[in-house]
């Protein structure tokens, strides 16, 4: 069964992220249930699944904003909850709702993030400017207060903040929500470049085309458990009915794997 679920999984030797029997219960109800997976350097791992399947909870557990009820999160072999300060230095996080401190300018916020992650002051300003220019429209408003930013601009700011300290592992909940098409394309390129540079990413998304275009492997969560895992081709093969001349569309693939009629 385990082999079946992990059809097509890439061989993982030295994972930058490893979840071992991870569980999270809220008021007795399991949001994440005995979840294990690994993400290797250079790999982008996508988590998909219906609302309430445990994707965001998983991402929050990996980012260290939730504490697991059971199991472990290992970041480059460091137990996140035993040595949070060490593990979090390697981690960049973009939450599902990218709120920032509203009475700071975007630039001040990014400098604060640099300070919290211990980035040396020299070269900070230039790196902030470079990363901000990746996304259209962010650099000109960087000195305005964040409370005037739209959802999309907050998303861009959070993406830049996550990348500032050159993390080894990126954890992103819905990377392109609110972004205009050009910025979504930039985000995709940024993620690919990050992985090509040896970083690993755990990306949770409802945008199946994004997952297909960017992720090396995809895991489908259902009721807090991993229902299927593999690269998109392997998953598509699993979801295509026997004898069907064409492969399943992304939506069909999702519905079949998610157990929807």
């Amino acid at each position, binding site marked *: 069964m385990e082999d079946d679920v992990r059809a097509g999984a890439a061989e993982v030797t030295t994972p930058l992220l490893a979840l071992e029997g991870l569980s999270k219960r809220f008021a007795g109800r399991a949001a994440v249930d005995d979840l294990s997976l690994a993400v290797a350097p250079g790999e982008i791992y996508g988590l998909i699944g219906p609302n309430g399947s445990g994707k965001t909870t998983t991402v929050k557990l990996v980012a260290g*904003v939730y504490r697991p009820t059971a199991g472990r999160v290992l970041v480059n072999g460091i137990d996140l909850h035993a040595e949070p300060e060490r593990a979090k230095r390697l981690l960049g996080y973009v939450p599902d709702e990218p709120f920032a401190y509203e*009475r700071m300018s975007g630039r001040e916020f990014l400098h604060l*993030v640099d300070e*919290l992650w211990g980035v040396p002051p020299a070269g900070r*300003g230039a790196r902030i400017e470079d990363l901000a220019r990746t996304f259209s429209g962010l650099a000109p408003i960087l000195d305005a207060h964040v409370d*005037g930013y*739209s959802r999309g601009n907050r998303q861009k700011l959070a993406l830049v903040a996550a990348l500032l300290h050159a993390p080894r592992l990126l954890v992103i909940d819905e990377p392109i929500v609110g972004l205009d098409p050009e910025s979504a394309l930039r985000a995709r390129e940024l993620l690919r470049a990050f992985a090509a540079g040896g970083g690993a990413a755990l990306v949770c998304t409802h945008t199946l085309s994004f997952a297909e275009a960017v992720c090396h492997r995809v895991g489908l969560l259902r009721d807090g458990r991993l229902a299927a895992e593999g690269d998109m081709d392997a998953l598509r093969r699993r979801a295509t009915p026997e004898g069907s001349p064409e492969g399943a569309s992304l939506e069909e693939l999702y519905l079949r794997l998610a157990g929807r009629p």
Partner: protein
Amino acid sequence: MRAVLRDAGGARLAVVAGFAAVFGAVVLGEFLAFRRGLEALRGLDLAGLALSLYFLESVLVLILLIALVSYVASGLWVFYRAGDTRFLLASPLPLPGLFALRAVQTFLLTSWPLAVVGAPALVALGTAHARGAGFYAAGAGTLGLFAVLIGAAGALVTAVAGSALRRAPTRLAVGVVTVALVALFAVAVGRGVVPSTSDFYAIFEPGALNGKPASIKFIETKFALWPSHPYAAALHAGATGSEAGSAATRAAAWLLPAAVLALAATLGLGLYRRALPTVAESFVLAGGEPAAPGRGRARSFPRRLAGPVGALVERDLLALVRNPHEWSRAAFLVFLLALYTAFLFVAPLGEVADRPAAVARLLLLNVLAAGYFLTAFGLRFVFPSVSLEGRAAWVLFSSPVSLRRLLAAKLGLHAGLLAAAVVPIALAGTLRLTGDPRLVAATAVLLLLLAATTATLLLALGAAWPNFREPNPEALSTSGAGLAGTLACLGYVALVGWCASRVALALAAGGGGLPWLALAGLVSAALVAGALALAWRRLPTLEVV
């Protein structure tokens, strides 16, 4: 107990009951103090009659000012930026209906000075002068008219301010209007309400003018321009049978609320109709708003303090400085404390220094007042500070900075701010009471202990049971943990006040005050250690939503 601290399930009812009990105790305490004072004044015959009128005039002026400032500060949010404004604007609700709804909502939120100060003053007045049910019914009617005046005036001022500042950010508008009103009222109270030494001479002057005691006439003239005067005169005449007031003031008690209500319903509504669409449509610029010309230079951060902890402290300071709504509230509380101290300065306390028991009692009151303000400040600004990391708390929780360092940073900042806001004013009051440097030094130590301990207690409780979903500091303060913090602080303040009075008595008797200072120090240390241990234990288990 745990359910209460977490605000879980039916525990909310217990929290409400707890705060109601604290509120009841405060009102009862005020009633007892008012009654005792009014009974003492009754024994002074003619001067007592005048002084009780002065008391009523002052109380009603303070109610008017506090309620009006609260009304406008809250009203600028409720009238223009309440969460359901856009929904109601899109509904077929007519604008006059929305204006009336906002006026009533704001009045209900901000009419607390009438209940907290006005009601106990009325009952104390009636019992001190042994009045029957008729007096209370008439008095309630008088206060009702006064309430209508306050509500209508509040709606009118809010509409005028909202219209004038409709293109300014709401927080800035609230801050500017509140500070302007507080400054205006501070000048007006300083000149017209706080009695001077010559006022006291006039009040104790026997004689009559046009068949009325000169002292009563003097006070009536002094307060004639205050809109609260007709109501103070009516209450005084009803309770004491004095000749305070005239046919004109009796008519004004009815005409003033009617006139201001009419103005609010016409001019106020017109201004509201003009300003609301402008304010409501400026919620956000989707494309982002570039920094204003001249302010566009790239600013690094932090600019003054170094390291992660320094950056967090500087961020908190920046958030306070850039939030006029918050600092206007803080300024209002400082104004009340300063007003209290101003009364202490002008009161005829020349002979008190020679009476150790009186010094001890007044010192007790002074420390209690400082402790009360520290608790109020702490509950409003310190207790919610961890929760107010709010929806941006993910930055801290995912960062490699330990939450304990965050707490240490907040503690240093808030204890410093509390001490800076309250201790100098309270110490000035102490200097008025005594010239003994040992007593002044001992009081300074006790006040600093008070500031540090209340800040620690409230911050630790707020950190141990935070609510990252709630952005409203008032709602956060009235949680179960807020109630626990309030009770702990009030008990602790009472103990430190008692220690201060014992130190005063011991020094007057030629002894030393060290044992009492040591007791206060030990209790403070125990409370600080317990609160920090609790927060230290809970912080690593916190989760952000």
